């Protein structure tokens, strides 16, 4: 008998797009130029942001005529132009809703043009419930073109499965509609945190950030360590970061190294590495284990990045300060039991195209408040 899938909750909130997820994955694979095969407005905001990050994103600009008569010629033309203009070493072609619905075959254009560099083709549209589908599809294609290994592919797939679960449990996919919320006032939260530090309380300082967002989230952990140091309680703080630079796609390893170098230079001591930059869905489990073994009696914890991926088991009794970049993550975090939730608005765009730590508002607030201490 056919088995019915468990009914998924309604989605009435626009969700992160699988097309965009494929674009970011191609960037992580060091793709030089990506062609979006579809209408000019599709994924425009992220396409531009990714250009800040050094990857060219162009479009075949399908219009009504293209929808009706097909976009093969347009794709061939843009592909040829891309090769001539950018001289890329690696090209991506990414589908859109429009081109996929009308049955465009990305591969036909590649067969016709015969570029002498690898082309990663991703037959993706935005009609998937989880945007991680776009990542998997991009990786599948990278695997087929021999750009990543089978082992890396399997590793990524397992991580994505966890990432999807994390979002379903306590994240952006946990409810059919989530009110945006600006979180608690940074000044007040910073005041409370400094109060605890000054009382000589012991605290965990955890970075569990997704990929390049760590460029700014790390600044928060850096600030916490710096102010504790300045107040004379530096040794009460234990630092855990997901900055393992031996795992993940090329860009993620590079970024982990860059952030680690910056931290080191500023005297930040890393006590525990809990995973790599793409391991944010599971690094929380590593942190949880370490906390259970060594730090379960600590008084507070600052968690920046993806705080909702950290299991509550061993931090239940601590005063929790979490820093997120998602206005829709505030309510779920409060519901989990996080006492203070701070939002770094528009964090992601500021972490594209950078190779050094970027100052955060919460970090700046903390530093300002101990300036004269």
């Amino acid at each position, binding site marked *: 008998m*056919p*088995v*019915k*899938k468990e*009914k998924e909750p309604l989605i009435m909130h626009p969700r992160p797009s699988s097309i965009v997820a494929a674009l970011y994955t191609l960037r992580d694979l060091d793709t030089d130029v990506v062609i979006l095969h579809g209408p000019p407005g599709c994924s425009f905001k992220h396409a531009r942001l990714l250009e800040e990050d050094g990857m060219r994103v162009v479009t075949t600009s399908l219009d009504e005529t293209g929808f009706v008569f*097909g976009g093969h010629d347009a794709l061939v033309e843009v592909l040829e132009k891309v090769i001539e203009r950018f001289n890329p070493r690696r090209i991506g072609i990414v589908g859109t809703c429009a081109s*996929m*619905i*009308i*049955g*465009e*075959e990305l591969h*036909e254009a590649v067969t016709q043009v015969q570029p002498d560099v690898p082309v990663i083709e991703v037959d993706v549209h935005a009609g998937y419930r989880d945007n991680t589908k776009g990542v998997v599809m991009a990786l599948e294609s990278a695997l087929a073109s021999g750009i990543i290994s089978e082992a890396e592919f399997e590793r990524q797939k397992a991580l994505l499965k966890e990432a999807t679960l994390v979002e379903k449990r306590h994240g952006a996919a946990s409810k059919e509609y989530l009110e945006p919320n600006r979180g608690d006032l940074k000044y007040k939260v910073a005041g409370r945190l400094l109060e605890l530090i000054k009382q000589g309380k012991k605290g965990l300082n955890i970075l569990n950030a997704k990929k390049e967002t760590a460029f700014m989230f790390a600044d928060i952990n850096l600030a916490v360590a710096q102010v504790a140091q300045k107040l004379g309680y530096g040794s009460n703080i234990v630092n855990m970061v997901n900055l393992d630079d031996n795992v993940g796609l090329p860009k993620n390893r590079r970024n982990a190294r860059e952030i680690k170098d910056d931290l080191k230079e500023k005297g930040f001591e890393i006590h525990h590495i809990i995973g790599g930059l793409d391991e944010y869905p599971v690094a929380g489990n590593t942190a949880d284990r370490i906390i259970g073994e060594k730090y379960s009696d600590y008084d507070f914890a600052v968690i920046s990045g993806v705080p909702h991926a950290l299991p509550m088991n061993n931090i239940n009794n601590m005063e929790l300060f979490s820093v997120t970049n998602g206005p829709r993550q505030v309510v779920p975090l409060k519901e989990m039991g996080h006492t203070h939730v701070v939002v770094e608005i528009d964090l992601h765009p500021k972490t594209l195209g950078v190779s050094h730590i970027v100052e955060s508002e919460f970090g700046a607030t903390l530093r300002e408040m101990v300036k004269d201490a």
Partner: protein
Amino acid sequence: MPKQIAIYGKGGIGKSSTASNVAAACADEGYRVTIIGCDPKSDSSITLLQGRRIPTIMDLMREGIDIKEEDIVFNGYKGVKCLEIGGPEPGIGCAGRGIIVAISLLKKISRAIEDTDLVIYDVPGDIVCGGFVAPVKKGLVNEAYVLTSGEYMPLYAANNICKGLSRLEMTLNGVICNSRGALNEEKIVSEFAKEVGSQLLAFIPKDVLVQTCERDGYSVIEKAPDSQIAAVYRKLAKSIMGKRDGKIPVPLDDARLRELTRI
């Protein structure tokens, strides 16, 4: 690698009848056959299943079922594996997209399109949009056949299909004439076949027996195995199963097509 064929032709010209009779005739010869109905009406395999309607891939998808091969593959006459893609009600949604989705699902989960000797794709109507050539584009078809009568409109559709095939660089492996009793019909279709670069494989005379059997839910191969018309289908089946090279067709211009039907 199985022989993978698609049968194209104008709507109502008799593709499903031809496909199911060829499937049954091949099964009689001991071949393992799979038939995949690509028409939203889902009636390609009905005469191999004694008139029973099977759940279509699109039906199950709509119900949110985690589709396994056993949910969509049904054994028909002499073990012919029957699948129906199905599709939306007329006038809503996008049947072409349905075919694309179903074809990628089949590629992933189905052994019935691999562990077999012959796969027949019964594709609706003319080639109307990207979706309807998905079996060809996704590399699941290696031979194409066009079914037509000798009348102008079905030939016009057949010629259009040849246009589509040549654009896809897909070979045409034969033209089949399903007679509607037009004057000089066999000669016209035979000439058409030659001019587009192919050949007439069979002339199927108009026989009320086909409709009688279909109404009861059977192919003529099953219900009237000794009939003359059954022998015609058997001969066509043999011809399809025999090794033959196809050529990318060269469509005719409309003036020539009109002239042809006046022979």
